[in-house]
C-alpha cells in the first residue's frame, strides 16, 4: 500500500502554491486588450426608475459603452434552479431576476447600469456622471408585515410578497397539532437564525472573453461549479450553446456556498465581451461583496417540542419565515424547505414532525445557501429546544438526548420526514464527547470560575446532516431543475502517470491531495503520480461541482467507478502480456501478478502497452487507457456528531469567552484525517462566528448597517479556542463505494447551538432567569438579557 493512500494525513499539495503566492485566481487572469466593468448599484432599498441618463457619462474619457436593462431586453433573467411546490399544490411565485434592474431597484446593491472603460478608474468616474431619476418607494423589510394584505410589493407583477407557504409533512399537520395539544409537556422557543455574509477571502471576479474567429465565449469566474454556470447562463440567460461556451473556475479562494450561484455579473461580462469584441473584467470590491453576494440564513422561527410523561419526544412543530431577499438566487427556494424540513427529526425517534415555511420577498440582498444551508437552521432550533426542555423538566440535557436517540440497532432508520438514515451511532459520539470534556469534572471547574467572579457554562449539541447530495430522481421530484450526480474521467498516460478530471471543484477543500490518495490506494502507485484536474468545462466531463459536503461522497465515488474500469481493462492487458487468464491477474502495490506464480508486470509496463499496442489483443480490446464514470448516489449521506462548548461569562460586561470546543464526529470512513480535521476547524470557526459575532443588520430604510468589517464582525484567531476534535466513531456509509459521508459543513452545523446552550447554562447556573438569547450572543445582548433575568 502506498504511504500516501487512504487514511494517510498527507500534507496538502496545493498549499505550496497557495502559500507562496503562486495560486492562479480569476483576478490574476489578464487578457490582451482587456477592459474593465464597473457596476453602478442602487443606494436605496426600493425605488421606481424614472430615467437613467448616460449621455454625459458616455462622453467621459476611456468609456467604451454604458449598458442598462434596455441592452438586455432580448436576454433572459437569471434563472432559479429549484421550484418549490407549496402546501396547497401550487408552484412558488417566481419573479424575473434581470441582469440589470428593470423598472425598479429592489435592494441596496441592485445593479442599475454598467460602465465598461479602458481602466477601472475611468469606469468609476463615468458611473458617477450617470444621472439617475429614481423615485423612492417604501421598503419591504419585515417578513411578517410583508405578507399581510395590502403590504407594499417587492414585485408588482406577483400577487404578494409570499414566495410560497410550504408544509411538510402536510399529511401530518393535524396529527402533530393533536399530539401537541395532548402532550404531557410542551417546550416552546421563538428565535432568529441571524443573516450572514459568507465573506470568502477572495471576492467574486468574472472575466468574459469572446473569440470572433470561432464564435466561442470563455468565462473565467470564481465558481464552485463551472458546469452549472455554463448550463444556467448558456441555456437560460444568453442563449449560447454549450459547445460555444467554456467556463473556467481556476483557483478559487473559498466559496462557502456563495460561489455556487449564477450571478448577473457573469452573464454581463460574457455578453459584453462580444458586444465590445474585447475581454471584459469585473472584480468585486469587499464593499460590493457585502451587498451583492447572496447572504445566508435569515430565518424567524417558532418551534414547539412535545414530550410524554417519560420525556419521550412525541411531536415537533415548527413555523419559519425564511427571507428570500429581493430575487430568487439559484438554489434559494430549496434551502428552507428540502434542506431544512427533512432534518427536523434530528437524531431522535420523534414520530411526528410538521414544518411550515413561509418564504418571503423583501428589499434586501438575495439569500441562498451558506455552509450547511438549511441544516444549521434545523439543528439550531432543534438542539436549542431540546436543551430548553431539559431545563424545564429538570433533567440532564445529555440524558434527555440519549433517551430519545435512534438506537444503533434501529438503522437503517426511516424518519417521519422522508429521509432514511443508513447508518449512525449517536450514543457513541455523545459518550465520546462527554468523555473528552470530562463532564463529571464540570462542577469543580464551575466552582473555580465562580471563585474568580465568572459564570461557567457547559453546552451540548448533537447534530445530523443530510449531505452528499443527492439522488437525481429524488431531487427532481422535489423540484430541482438539475441532476446531482458527479463525473470523473481517469486518463492513464503511457508511462503510467494519471490525470483525473473530476466534476467536483476544490476551493480550499484539498481535493488535489485527497482524491489522488484514493486512486493511489486503488492502484498502488505513489500519489505524486496522480494529478487532479478540475474547474474547466473544456477539460472535465459535465459535473455538478462542490457544495453540500458532496465531493468525496459523490465525486469520489465517480472517480472510484472510473478507476475500477481502468483496473479491469489493465488486467485484461496484463493477462494478455503474461499469457494468463484474466481471472488470475491480481493488482497490488502497482504490480500485476498471476496468482500462484512469480510472473509479474509493473503498472507502467501495462500502461505503455495500452498506448504502444505492439503485443496487444487488438481484436478484442481497444488501445488506450482512459475511462469515464458518472455516479448518482442512491441516498444522502448522514454524518452526525456531538459538539460541546465550555464558556465563561463575565457578569460585569456580558462578555463570553469560549474556553474549549470539542467535537466528536462520525464521518464514516476517512481519506485524510488531517484534511478532515481542517474542515472541522473551519466549519466550527464559522459556526462560532455566527453564534458570537456575525450579524447582517439593515436599518428601517433598508440600508445595510453592517456593510464593512468595521461593523460586521468576522471571527479572528483570537476569538477561537484550541479545538479538541475526534472522528474515531465511524459507521461507514452503506451505499457508496468508499463508505464516506462528507465533512465540509458539519462544523458550521453543530457548533452554534453548542455555544448558545453553553451561554444559557452559564447564566442559569449564575441565577439568571434567561432561557434564550438570539445570536450573535454579543456582550451587549448577554448583559441586556442578564438585566432582565
Amino acid at each position, binding site marked *: 500500500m502506498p504511504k500516501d493512500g487512504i487514511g494517510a494525513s498527507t500534507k496538502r499539495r496545493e498549499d505550496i502554491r497557495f502559500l507562496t503566492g503562486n495560486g492562479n485566481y480569476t483576478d490574476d487572469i489578464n487578457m490582451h486588450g482587456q477592459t474593465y466593468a464597473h457596476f453602478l448599484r442602487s443606494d436605496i432599498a426600493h425605488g421606481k426608475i424614472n430615467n437613467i441618463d448616460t449621455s454625459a457619462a458616455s462622453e467621459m474619457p476611456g468609456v467604451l459603452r454604458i449598458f442598462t436593462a434596455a441592452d438586455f431586453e432580448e436576454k433572459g433573467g437569471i434563472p432559479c434552479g429549484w421550484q418549490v411546490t407549496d402546501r396547497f399544490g401550487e408552484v412558488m411565485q417566481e419573479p424575473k431576476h434581470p441582469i440589470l434592474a428593470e423598472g425598479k431597484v429592489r435592494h441596496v446593491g441592485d445593479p442599475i447600469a454598467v460602465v465598461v472603460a479602458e481602466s477601472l*478608474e475611468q469606469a468609476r468616474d463615468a458611473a458617477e456622471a450617470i444621472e439617475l431619476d429614481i423615485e423612492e418607494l417604501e421598503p419591504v423589510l419585515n417578513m411578517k408585515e410583508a405578507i399581510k394584505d395590502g403590504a407594499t410589493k417587492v414585485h408588482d407583477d406577483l400577487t404578494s410578497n409570499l414566495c410560497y407557504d410550504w408544509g411538510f409533512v402536510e399529511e401530518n399537520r393535524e396529527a402533530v397539532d393533536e399530539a401537541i395539544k395532548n402532550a404531557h409537556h410542551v417546550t416552546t422557543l421563538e428565535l432568529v437564525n441571524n443573516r450572514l455574509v459568507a465573506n470568502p477571502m477572495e471576492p467574486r471576479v468574472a472575466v468574459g472573453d469572446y473569440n470572433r474567429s470561432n464564435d466561442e465565449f470563455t468565462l473565467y469566474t470564481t465558481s464552485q461549479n463551472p458546469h452549472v454556470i455554463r448550463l444556467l447562463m448558456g441555456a437560460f440567460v444568453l442563449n449560447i450553446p454549450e459547445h460555444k461556451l467554456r467556463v473556467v473556475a481556476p483557483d478559487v479562494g473559498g466559496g462557502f456556498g456563495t460561489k455556487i450561484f449564477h450571478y448577473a455579473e457573469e452573464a454581463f461580462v460574457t455578453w459584453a465581451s462580444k458586444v465590445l469584441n474585447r475581454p471584459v473584467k469585473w472584480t468585486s470590491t469587499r464593499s460590493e461583496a457585502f451587498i451583492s453576494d447572496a447572504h445566508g440564513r435569515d430565518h424567524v422561527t417558532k418551534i414547539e417540542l412535545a414530550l410524554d410523561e417519560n420525556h419521550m419526544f412525541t411531536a415537533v412543530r415548527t413555523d419559519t419565515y425564511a427571507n428570500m431577499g429581493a430575487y430568487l438566487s439559484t438554489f434559494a427556494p430549496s434551502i428552507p424547505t428540502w434542506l431544512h424540513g427533512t432534518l427536523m427529526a434530528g437524531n431522535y425517534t420523534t414520530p411526528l414532525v410538521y414544518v411550515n415555511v413561509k418564504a418571503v420577498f423583501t428589499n434586501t440582498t438575495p439569500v441562498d445557501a451558506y455552509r450547511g444551508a438549511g441544516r444549521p437552521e434545523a439543528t439550531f432550533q432543534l438542539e436549542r429546544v431540546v436543551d430548553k426542555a431539559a431545563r424545564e423538566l429538570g433533567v440532564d440535557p445529555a440524558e434527555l438526548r440519549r433517551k430519545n436517540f435512534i438506537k444503533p440497532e434501529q438503522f437503517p432508520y426511516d424518519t417521519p420526514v422522508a429521509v432514511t438514515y443508513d447508518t449512525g451511532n449517536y450514543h457513541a459520539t455523545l459518550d465520546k464527547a462527554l468523555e473528552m470534556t470530562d463532564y463529571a469534572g464540570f462542577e469543580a471547574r464551575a466552582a473555580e470560575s465562580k471563585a474568580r467572579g465568572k459564570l461557567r457554562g457547559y453546552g451540548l449539541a448533537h447534530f445530523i446532516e443530510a449531505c452528499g447530495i443527492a439522488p437525481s430522481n429524488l431531487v427532481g421530484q422535489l423540484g430541482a431543475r438539475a441532476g446531482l450526480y458527479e463525473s470523473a474521467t481517469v486518463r492513464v498516460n503511457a508511462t503510467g502517470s494519471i490525470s483525473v478530471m473530476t466534476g467536483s471543484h476544490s476551493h480550499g477543500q484539498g481535493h488535489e491531495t485527497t482524491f489522488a490518495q484514493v486512486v493511489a490506494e486503488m492502484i498502488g502507485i505513489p500519489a505524486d503520480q496522480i494529478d487532479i484536474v478540475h474547474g474547466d468545462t473544456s477539460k472535465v466531463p459535465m459535473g455538478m461541482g462542490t457544495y453540500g459536503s458532496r465531493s468525496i461522497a459523490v465525486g469520489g465515488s465517480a472517480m472510484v467507478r472510473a478507476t475500477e474500469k481502468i483496473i479491469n481493462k489493465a488486467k485484461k492487458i496484463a493477462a494478455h502480456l503474461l499469457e494468463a487468464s484474466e481471472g488470475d491477474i491480481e493488482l497490488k502495490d502497482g504490480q500485476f501478478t498471476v496468482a500462484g506464480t512469480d510472473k509479474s508486470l509493473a503498472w507502467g509496463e501495462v500502461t505503455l502497452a495500452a498506448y504502444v499496442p505492439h503485443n496487444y489483443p487488438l481484436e478484442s480490446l481497444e488501445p488506450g487507457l482512459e475511462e469515464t464514470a458518472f455516479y448518482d448516489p442512491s441516498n444522502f449521506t448522514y454524518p452526525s456528531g456531538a459538539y460541546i462548548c465550555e464558556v465563561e461569562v463575565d457578569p460585569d460586561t456580558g462578555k463570553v469567552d469560549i474556553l474549549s470546543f470539542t467535537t466528536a464526529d462520525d464521518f464514516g470512513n476517512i481519506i485524510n484525517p488531517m484534511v478532515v480535521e481542517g474542515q472541522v476547524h473551519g466549519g466550527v470557526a464559522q459556526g462560532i462566528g455566527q453564534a458570537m459575532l456575525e450579524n447582517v443588520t439593515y436599518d428601517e430604510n433598508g440600508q445595510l448597517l453592517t456593510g464593512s468589517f468595521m461593523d460586521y464582525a468576522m471571527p479572528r484567531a483570537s476569538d477561537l479556542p484550541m479545538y479538541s476534535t475526534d472522528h474515531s466513531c465511524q459507521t461507514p456509509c452503506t451505499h457508496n463505494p468508499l463508505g464516506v459521508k462528507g465533512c465540509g459543513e458539519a462544523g458550521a452545523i453543530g457548533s452554534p447551538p453548542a455555544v448558545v446552550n453553553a451561554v444559557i447554562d452559564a447564566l442559569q447556573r449564575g441565577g439568571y432567569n434567561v432561557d434564550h438569547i438570539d445570536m450573535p450572543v*454579543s*456582550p451587549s445582548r448577554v448583559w441586556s438579557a442578564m438585566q432582565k433575568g
Partner: protein
Amino acid sequence: MYNFEFVKPGSVAEAVAALKDEEAQPLSGGQTLIPTMKQRLNMPGTLVSLTGIPELVGVSADGGTLTIGGATTHAQVAAEATAYPALAALAGNIGDPAVRNRGTIGGSLANNDPAACYPSAALASGATIVTNVREIAADDYFQGMFTTALDEGEIITGVKFPTPEKANYQKFEQPASRFALTGVFVAKYADGVRVAVTGASEEGVFRWTEAEAALSSNFSADAVDGLTASADGLIGDLHGTPEYRANLIKVLTKRAVAAAA
C-alpha cells in the same frame, strides 16, 4: 480614489505653506484618510504629508512631562514612552501592527474619532496639544465627535503629557472594528484624579467628573461603587445600547483603578 497631488515637505513652515491651498489636506499616518479616499468619500486636491518632518517625530521625557511629536507612530510611542507606561500600553493596543506602524498620535487627535483611544489619554492626563501657532489644553481641545479646536491649516506638532503617579487604560473592544466600544483612562496626579471616557458618548471623549471626585478622595475601585454613569447622551448602536455603555464606563473605571493601584 480620485487623482490628487502629493507633497512631502521637510519642515513645519513648508507644510503650513502648502496647506494654504484650499484643496489641500494634511496626511499623517493616513489610517482614516486613506480608506475614506479609497471609497471616494474624500477628494483632496493635494495631500501634504507630515511624516517627512524630523521635528514632528520622537518621544522625550523631561522632568514631569512626556513630549511626543505629532507625527510619531503608535508603535514608536509603545516602544519609547517608558516614562508613562499606561500611555505606552494604550498605544501598543491600538488596531493591529500595520495600523500601529503607520498611524500617528497627531493624526488620531486631529481626527478625534469618538471611539479612538488617544483622546481619552490626552484628556485624562490634562495634556497640552501643541500646534504650529499655539498650545491648547486638552479640556479646551476636544469639542465633540470629529470636532476639535484646531483651525483650518493648523498642524499638531506635539503633545505634552504630565506624567501621573498612577494610570491605567481599559478598552472594551467593539467586536468588529476593535475600536473602543467604551474605553476609560484613569490618571492619578498629586492634585487629583482624572477619568476620561472614549467610545461612549455622542459628544466624543468626556470626563466622568463624579468618579474623579470620588477617586480623588479615595483612589480605590470601591470608591466608584456608589456611582452610576448616566446613559443620557451615550451612543446606542448595533454593538451596544446607551445603558450598556453606561455600565461599561463604571466597570472599566473600577478595573482601571484596580490595575493602576
